């Protein structure tokens, strides 16, 4: 099939060209920028070589430190809560047959809505003066809270939004996993007199491990990229209490126009993520080969 060589290339090249022009080239551009200081003189960019100076600044950047720490707290706490609540609800509601389409519609809805609108909705609900959460607190006879303005509370408020946003989807994935487990193992365990806790601990959890891992990884990736909701809810504040890594890059690169330094920060984040992925793939490669 000699003539097919042409088509073999023609079908793959559009994707290759797009990736080359819009991912590889920008990456090289960022790399070049990261060794320079860029000044704007008469709408012309003037690059000044600064070597590794931009990278040397990274560890001393308090905003970056706050951003990295908050991103980590945000991702770990939010994803852990989503998985836990989702898993419990999935355990409680397996084998519900009626109303499946309705429930599935409801639980998919939040992830199809723009993040920025999730932020808008919750910003209104969190409002100190008229938000529904404070109305509820007042009705219960409790003091209203400044959900987004209180530095001690803001990160938690943002996490609550994310838990609301993503728990339904975790629930759906975990439920699908639970329902695909073979019934006969549980029948056998029951006959052997295993308690419900023993069944959960020794059968359900081990069998569910792949589903749990997939859901976890999927959510962690998105949690590390969080930007939209926080942009609208708090803009990273008050102070640095909800500063996340995407925000720090945005601020340094665009708001403050520190192009070279922002590029160095981007490169560092990309390098950390790439290293993480490669390490994770290496670690699971052995298992994958066996399976």
């Amino acid at each position: 099939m000699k003539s097919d060589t042409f088509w073999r290339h023609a079908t793959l090249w559009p994707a290759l060209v797009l990736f080359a022009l819009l991912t590889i080239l920008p990456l090289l551009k960022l790399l070049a920028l990261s060794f320079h200081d860029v000044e704007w003189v008469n709408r012309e960019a003037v690059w000044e070589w600064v070597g590794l100076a931009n990278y040397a600044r990274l560890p001393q950047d308090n905003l970056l430190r706050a951003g990295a720490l908050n991103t980590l707290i945000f991702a770990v706490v939010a994803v852990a809560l989503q998985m836990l609540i989702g898993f419990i609800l999935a355990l409680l509601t397996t084998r519900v047959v009626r109303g499946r389409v309705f429930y599935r519609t409801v639980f998919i809805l939040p992830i199809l809505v723009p993040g920025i609108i999730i932020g808008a909705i919750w910003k209104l609900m969190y409002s100190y003066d008229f938000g529904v959460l404070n109305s509820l607190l007042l009705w219960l006879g409790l003091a209203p809270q400044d959900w987004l303005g209180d530095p001690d509370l803001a990160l938690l408020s943002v996490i609550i939004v994310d838990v609301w946003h993503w728990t339904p989807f975790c629930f759906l994935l975990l439920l699908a996993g639970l329902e695909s487990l073979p019934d006969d193992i549980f029948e056998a365990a029951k006959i052997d007199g295993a308690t419900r806790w023993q069944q959960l601990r020794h059968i359900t959890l081990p069998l569910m491990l792949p589903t749990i891992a997939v859901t976890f990884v999927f959510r962690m990736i998105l949690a590390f990229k969080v930007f939209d909701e926080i942009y609208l809810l708090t803009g990273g504040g008050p102070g640095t209490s909800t500063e996340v890594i995407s925000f720090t890059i945005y601020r340094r690169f665009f708001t403050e126009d520190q192009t070279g330094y922002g590029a160095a920060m981007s490169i560092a984040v990309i390098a950390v993520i790439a290293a993480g992925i490669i390490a994770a793939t290496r670690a699971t490669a052995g298992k994958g080969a066996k399976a």
Partner: protein
Amino acid sequence: MTHAADTQAPLAASRRRFSLSEGQVSVIRHLVLMSFALVVLFPFFWIVSAAFKTQIDLLMGHILFEPNLDGFINVIFDKTSDFLRNFGNSMVIGAVSTFLVLVIATLAAFSLYRLQWPGWVLHSLLGWSVIFHMVPPITLAGAWYSMFRSVGLDNTYSGIILAHTTLHLPMALWMMGVFVRDVPKELVEAAQIDGAKVPRILWHVVLPIVRPGLAATGILTFIFSWNEFPVVLVLSQRQTATVPLGIGKYAQENTIAFTEMAAASTLSILPAFLLLLFAQRFIVRGLTSGAVK
């Protein structure tokens, strides 16, 4: 809710003690699911009701109110409102980038899985798209901005469409990969032996089989493009601004027009909501094949 067993055990125990029937257990399950569904839906009810309130009703926290369309009217018809333009921009950018993503991803998936590329090509392309997909888009947005500026593509539909196409290509590539692998190799080989060229094979053999996959991938790509925020924030100005940018603007004004913000949010949810109602099976299939695998 700290331990799965704590919530399960009492249920099991009570079932033994009072010997709940299957019917009663099912009622409890529905109660749990119903409460969960209410928690998920409540913010949507609240924002829709806020959109129909006057600013005073909203600020006073009135639960009962006379529905009022001012918020919607201001958002749609007011001369200072960009909402309709944003809506149109989102439609154009979403539709064109989805079309490009589908064409490029389907061709590439077919090429990779059915046209005998060496393993390293497959693995390095997929590996790179995984890395690119996991990196926060904001990291590359700056480079895109300055590249587009130097070729005159900043603040143009073409620039944003290119960026969105690239952004959603990895996901589409995996999803279409899953669907293309449903095309039997023998079928492709038989067609090749009969002398059919690749375009004919794509059109007559592959396309009919992957059509549901195209629908699933297309719907999700469109929704993700519609929702995308950080990249348009960097790349577009007023003329090319999309819906999320418009909503973001409301929140940044000194005196926030709450009812308009609520009305605009309500309208912006509609496309995803309608797709979810009328094309749910495609969305579910897309989410289970692409997002997860």
